[in-house]
């Protein structure tokens, strides 16, 4: 046989085998070509496939294998060299790729396996998360329960409701078998079972507070698991249950109001706790979960707060009730006081009248008795009676005045009066006593002091009299000066502004004495009632000590101020007061007030047409006297000698003025001759007045002895002439002092 280049396949004998090989190769090729397609198709479908490179490789490998098998089909028959070349190329490539793939797979297959494990892990994780979510949901539900519970607890301020609700809600939320609350007793030594959820408890079931288990629970703010057999947990009737459910106890702080200190808010330190015991159902194999314990703790805190609110409310209700009671009591007291004042005023009014009447009778009759014939003994007794009753009358008046003053029911009686006259009157009243004590009193009235003023004359006089009287009383030697002036705005007290309004002014009176003086510390006490400084001198002077108090009240009523200045004991003191008075136009209403000795007489009054005779040798004085009398409205006849006088004098002349300046008694004898002349006639003789250069005792005696009715000192002023004429002609009106 020749060796030819063409490779002759062994197409021989086993044609059947060849045929099967041929078909198998064909199917293998198809399969090998379709696998990558499938792969591509499915990979395209899936989104995630990390190993594309491997896929490509694997695809290439499969395709080449397929190609190889495909090319194998042509090698069954005789084939050309090209086919053999292709075949070889394909096989080489296939070999390369398959080796590469094999190498690759060494790396890849463990990865692929781990993916599997990761998948398993993730599945486990998902299952776990599901479980946990279930748990969280449960917790959230319990949280909702807590909120609802809190809401229920806090929606009421009644202590019992709070506690009952707590137990009920807790029982429901946590599905408890039993729930109990132990409260400390009043003594604090025992815990008393106060509330239970289901089972009835015996009354007064207590346990001592010092049990170790209780101390353990009270020692921490967390919920503590305790043994079901401890005395606080032994509440359920033993009914043969196997496994008693777990028991948890937590302390509930009982807060007092004073515990709410903002600074240590996190640690609410308090000594008193209540105990809350919670029992899970028996035979349930349930465990206390952490979240349930937390729930219990939270509830315990809320209950504490709710209880404290309830306590606050109770407190405030009690306080309000107390206040209402007090109000009622005060109202009653006020009404009683008013009734008492009214009763007193009525009493005073009645007593005023009732007491004064007999008083007047006593004083009047005693005075009358004094006028009758009495033995010295009797006179002494009557004088004492009179003195005592006068004292009593004064005291009565003072007391009545003072009580009316304090009520504010005293009214000033305003009227117009002469201020200057008032001062002179006061001085006249005091002068006798002052003279006896040898205390000269001087009165200084400021030139701008109004004469006619509007005010309460009687009370003003009382004030001045009281103060001047005090000055005299408490001075043993020295002198007293009374000054009255209109005060300007700079007064002593800074808060007392003196504003002289149009028709008002402020009168200031200063009474200075050089007596015992007052200790500066005693000055505030002086104006209090019934108080007197305890020096020896004053105790002997009597008086009830009301004078200054009354004066002060009168001064205040007159919108004024009164005070005393003293430099100390023994240095005298000055009493000063300001009062507000009204200025009146000079009106003649003043005639009725005060103590007129001689009413003010205007010019053309009783002297009009009065016929008088003036005898004076001196032309000038004669003229002057005539001028005086003419000014007063008289009709004047002038004579210049005794003889002429005798000749001219007639019954028409009411007054004869004769000059007796010349030494000797000739002029006086005129008086005698006039007397003679008129005793013979039936007519009233004229009044005889001497005009003399001096009014000493001898002159006066001479005048009297010669029957003259009066003597005037030359030169005569208008006022003097007026006064004398009034005295001579008006009937003598003498008013006694007040």
């Amino acid at each position, binding site marked *: 046989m020749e060796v030819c280049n063409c490779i002759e396949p062994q197409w021989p004998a086993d044609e059947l085998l060849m045929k099967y090989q041929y078909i198998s190769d064909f199917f293998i090729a198809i399969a090998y070509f379709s696998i990558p397609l499938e792969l591509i198709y499915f990979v395209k479908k899936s989104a995630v496939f990390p190993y594309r490179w491997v896929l490509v490789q694997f695809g290439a490998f499969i395709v080449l294998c397929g190609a190889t098998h495909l090319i194998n089909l042509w090698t069954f028959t005789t084939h050309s060299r090209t086919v053999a070349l292709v075949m070889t190329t394909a096989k080489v490539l296939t070999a390369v790729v398959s080796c590469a793939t094999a190498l690759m797979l060494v790396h890849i297959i463990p990865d692929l396996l781990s993916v599997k494990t990761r998948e398993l892990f993730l599945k486990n994780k998902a299952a776990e998360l599901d479980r946990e979510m279930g748990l969280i949901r449960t917790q959230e539900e319990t949280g909702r329960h807590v909120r609802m519970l809190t809401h229920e607890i806090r929606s009421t301020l009644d202590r019992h409701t709070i506690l009952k609700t707590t137990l009920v809600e807790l029982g429901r939320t946590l599905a408890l078998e039993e729930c109990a609350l132990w409260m400390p007793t009043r003594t604090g030594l025992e815990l008393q079972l106060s509330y239970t959820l289901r089972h009835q408890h015996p009354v007064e079931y207590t346990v001592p507070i010092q049990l170790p288990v209780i101390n353990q629970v009270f020692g921490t703010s967390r919920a503590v698991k305790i043994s079901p057999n401890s005395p606080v947990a032994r509440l359920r009737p033993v009914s043969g249950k196997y496994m008693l459910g777990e028991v948890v106890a937590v302390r509930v702080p009982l807060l007092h109001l004073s515990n709410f200190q903002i600074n240590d808010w996190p640690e609410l330190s308090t000594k008193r706790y209540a105990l809350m015991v919670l029992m899970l159902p028996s035979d349930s194999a349930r465990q206390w979960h952490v979240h349930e314990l937390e729930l219990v703790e939270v509830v315990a805190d809320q209950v504490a707060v709710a209880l404290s609110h309830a306590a606050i409310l109770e407190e405030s209700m009690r306080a309000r009730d107390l206040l209402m009671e007090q109000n009622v009591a005060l109202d009653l007291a006020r009404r009683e006081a008013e009734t008492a004042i009214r009763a007193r005023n009525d009493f005073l009014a009645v007593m005023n009248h009732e007491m004064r009447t007999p008083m007047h009778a006593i004083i009047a009759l005693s005075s009358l008795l004094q006028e009758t014939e009495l033995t010295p003994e009797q006179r002494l007794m009557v004088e004492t009676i009179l003195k005592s009753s006068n004292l009593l009358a004064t005291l009565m008046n003072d007391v009545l005045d003072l009580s009316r003053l304090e009520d504010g029911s005293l009214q000033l009686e305003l009227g117009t009066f002469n201020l200057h006259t008032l001062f002179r009157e006061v001085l006249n009243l005091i002068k006798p006593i002052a003279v006896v004590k040898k205390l000269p009193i001087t009165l200084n009235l400021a030139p701008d002091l109004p004469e006619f003023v509007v005010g309460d004359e009687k009370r003003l006089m009382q004030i001045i009299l009281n103060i001047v009287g005090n000055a005299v009383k408490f001075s043993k030697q020295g002198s007293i000066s009374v000054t009255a002036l209109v005060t300007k705005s700079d007064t002593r007290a800074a808060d007392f502004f003196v504003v002289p309004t149009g028709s008002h002014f402020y009168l200031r009176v200063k009474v200075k004495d050089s007596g015992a003086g007052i200790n500066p510390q005693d000055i505030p006490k002086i104006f209090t009632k019934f108080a007197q400084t305890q020096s020896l001198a004053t105790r002997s002077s009597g008086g009830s000590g009301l004078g200054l108090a009354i004066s002060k009240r009168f001064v205040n009523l007159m919108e004024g101020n009164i005070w005393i200045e003293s430099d100390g004991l023994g240095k005298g003191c000055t009493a000063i007061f300001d009062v507000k008075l009204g200025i009146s136009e000079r009106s003649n209403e003043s005639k009725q007030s005060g103590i007129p000795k001689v009413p003010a007489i205007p010019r053309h009054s009783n002297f009009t047409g009065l016929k008088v005779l003036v005898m004076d*040798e001196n032309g000038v004085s004669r003229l002057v*006297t005539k001028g005086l009398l*003419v000014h007063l409205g008289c009709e004047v006849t002038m004579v210049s000698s005794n003889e002429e006088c005798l000749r001219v004098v007639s019954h028409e002349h009411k007054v004869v003025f004769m000059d007796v300046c010349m030494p000797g008694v000739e002029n006086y004898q005129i008086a005698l001759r006039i007397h003679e002349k008129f005793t013979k006639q039936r007519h009233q003789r004229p009044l005889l007045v001497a005009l003399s250069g001096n009014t000493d005792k001898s002159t006066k005696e001479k005048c009297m002895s010669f029957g003259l009715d009066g003597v005037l000192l030359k030169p005569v002023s208008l006022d003097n002439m007026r006064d004398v004429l009034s005295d001579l002609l008006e009937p003598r009106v003498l008013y006694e002092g007040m």
Partner: protein
Amino acid sequence: MDTLIAQLQRQFRDYTISLYHQGFLDDQFTELKKLQDECSPDFVAEVVTLFFEDCEKLISNMARALDQAGNVDFKLVGSSVHQLKGSSSSVGAKRVKGLCITLKECCDSQNYEGCVRCLQQVDIEYKTLKAKLQDLFNLEQQIVQAGGRIPQVDI
């Protein structure tokens, strides 16, 4: 603006006050002024004039009496001086009155020199007063003529 009237009035016031302060006049003169009113508008003038006439008469009497040196009628002098004293006190001529008192004492003690001296002084004094009062009255006239009111002078 000082009107004539105001000037005159001020002059009048000042002059009056000076008379009082210098002791020429005293309170009695004020009393006299009080007696002057519508009914007797010249009362003061009348009285004063009469007084000066009286002064003249009495002083001349006394001078004549004292001229009889060696045979002085002290009684007469005494009575004249008494009269003069009375008049001057009625009018308010203070200085004159004072001198009269001194003269009276001299007369009582029959002190011739003293009397003469005093009399001289009295003479001077009354004349001075007369002149001054004349001035015062002139001022008053001027004020009235100018149409003003005579001011009241409070001493």
